[in-house]
């Protein structure tokens, strides 16, 4: 039996999520609620009949899962509305613009007995997904020193870089390496001559098992980059998106063309994420990123922010599952 999916989304995110669900043979899109200008979204003709213009038009109980893919500032509101349907919900991290919003949303879902699954582009990016498995399989032995970095263009506005940008990597670290006991964060920002903001943050995480993790977050420039180096007692795994682009192109006229990403994939990152959560919802598979992992990652993000402010390490009380 197919999983019935309702997608609540805006713009590019709606398009990408729709593509991922349509590609999945175990799911059927039974409702689409476009948020924002519907005309800008390319919904295939055969799905036009399931487009709704409000939550009220969607039938509660008809959906097995609601995929909320809206901009950060709207996520918590839509997840709260979706929670009243009683279906499972998938929403990208972070679940809200502030941690208070996120924790409220998590509480509401818990009270209503609704499973809230976290979308995390790092968890399902194939290099990171593979590395997670290798680490769990003992490929590097006892983790020693772990490096992760992520860079993207500055999103504009005034945001907590740890809560908004760091959360996905923190969640991957928690899911892969376990509990964090101490966090030391540093943050700095400046402006380029042309007035574009540049923001940089680092976090040292001390894990419960003694491993040391360094995470670098950069909001600058235009390119999207990520890397990891996972060094342990029995080996090391290394990846750098700048070195993995399979295509280099030089054109002799015009301004030339720079290939945008190393992730040239038939099955997109989102499609992989959808596939995993279908298995969780349909077959009861254990999610690769549990609710406890997400809450702990949020604690890490908050501690990093506090540490950066105070200039001292911050201990995390309780750990995963508390």
């Amino acid at each position, binding site marked *: 039996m197919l999983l019935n999916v309702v997608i609540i989304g805006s713009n590019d995110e709606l398009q990408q999520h729709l593509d991922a669900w349509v590609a999945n043979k175990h799911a059927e899109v039974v409702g689409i609620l476009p948020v924002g200008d519907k005309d800008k979204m390319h919904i295939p003709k055969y799905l036009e009949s399931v487009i709704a213009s409000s939550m009220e038009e969607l039938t509660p109980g008809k959906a097995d899962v609601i995929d909320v893919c809206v901009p950060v500032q709207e996520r918590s509101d839509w997840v709260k509305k979706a929670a009243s349907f009683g279906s499972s919900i998938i929403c990208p991290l972070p679940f809200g613009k502030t941690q208070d919003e996120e924790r409220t949303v998590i509480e509401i879902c818990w009270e209503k007995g609704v499973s809230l699954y976290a979308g995390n582009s790092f968890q399902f990016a194939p290099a990171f997904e593979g590395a997670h498995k290798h680490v769990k399989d003992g490929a590097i032995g006892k983790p020693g020193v772990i490096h992760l970095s992520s860079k993207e263009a500055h999103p504009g506005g005034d945001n907590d870089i740890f809560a908004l940008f760091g959360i996905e990597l923190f969640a991957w670290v928690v899911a892969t390496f376990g509990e964090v006991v101490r966090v030391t964060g540093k943050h700095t920002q400046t402006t380029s001559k042309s007035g574009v903001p540049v923001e940089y943050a680092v976090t040292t995480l001390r894990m419960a098992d003694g491993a040391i993790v360094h995470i*670098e977050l950069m909001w600058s420039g235009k390119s999207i980059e990520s890397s990891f180096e996972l*060094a342990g007692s029995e080996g090391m795994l290394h990846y750098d998106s700048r070195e993995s682009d399979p295509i280099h192109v030089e054109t002799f006229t015009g301004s030339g063309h720079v290939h945008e990403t190393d992730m040239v994939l038939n099955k997109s990152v989102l499609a992989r994420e959808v596939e995993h959560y279908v298995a969780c919802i349909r077959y009861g598979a254990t999610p690769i990123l549990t609710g406890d992992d997400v809450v702990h990652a949020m604690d890490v993000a908050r501690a990093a922010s506090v540490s950066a402010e105070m200039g001292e390490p911050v201990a995390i009380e309780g750990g995963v599952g508390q």
Partner: protein
Amino acid sequence: MNIGIISFAHMHAHAYAEYVVKHPEAKLAAIWDADETRGMEAAKQYGATFYANLEAMLQADVDAVIVCSENAHHKEHVVQAANHHKPILCEKPIATEIDDAIEMIQACEQNNVPLQIAYPVRFLPAIQEAKTMIEADEIGEVIAINATNNGKMPGGWFVEKELSGGGSATDHIVHLLDVLRWIFRDEAHRVHAEYDTRFHDINVEDSGIVQIEMESGKVVSIDPSWSRPDTFPTWATVTMKFIGTEGSLYVNAFKQKSVYYNDRDGKVEDQPWTDDMNESLIHDFIDCVQTGRKPFISGEDGLRTLEVVKAAYQSDDEKRTVSVVRHEE
């Protein structure tokens, strides 16, 4: 110019010996080593005279010395050489204790001889190029640096605290911090470190992440770990990522290499082809002695990095951020 080498305890002594021998205006005239067998073998290899007594070597026809003894012995050897008015190139770290470093600097000042500390990373072509580009304002004002100097575990006295002063943090932080001080003329203000022993069965640290806030406000991360696996194709790596207002610059100083897939020996090996930093270091020291100029890298440079190494150990110990104290020489 006759050069004497004091001890072959540090493996770099062989590189230094080779480049002294090759230098058109220098000769490796003398070697002393507390390990007489090791010293005599080296003397035979490089055509130098072996001295069983250091005092005797310092009284002989030696114009300058290179100190490559265990870290804890640097003070004794540098002070002795200074008292014999010999210009000195001393391996890093300058010493294992701040008081020792100060005593060494003072001894050289009082005897009016140059004390140069061996920080070869300054001589890596890619590092020098990065410095030129940063000074040309290519990435604007730098607000943060993420640096790594990782290697394989050297073993031997390097992992005996009474001789080395510590593990990978003692071995590697200094290389990166020295380059940052050199490029930015900046000093460390506050330090936080997390250390552990995760890779090897030894009694000193081999893992670490250090966060430094510079006086200028720059946010610096340093990874000095002995984290390269046995199968890694080279001994060590040096990487530095500079984040600026107008862009970012990433230098991977040992990336200039060919890769050799060696079926004969069953391994993959990097074949570096850029200029050898140790050769440049030796040439610079010899030039310093010949011209009588101030050393490119001074005892004070050595002391400044040692102060940060000590603050970092204190931070890891006490689980808090520590302010760096700078001592008068």
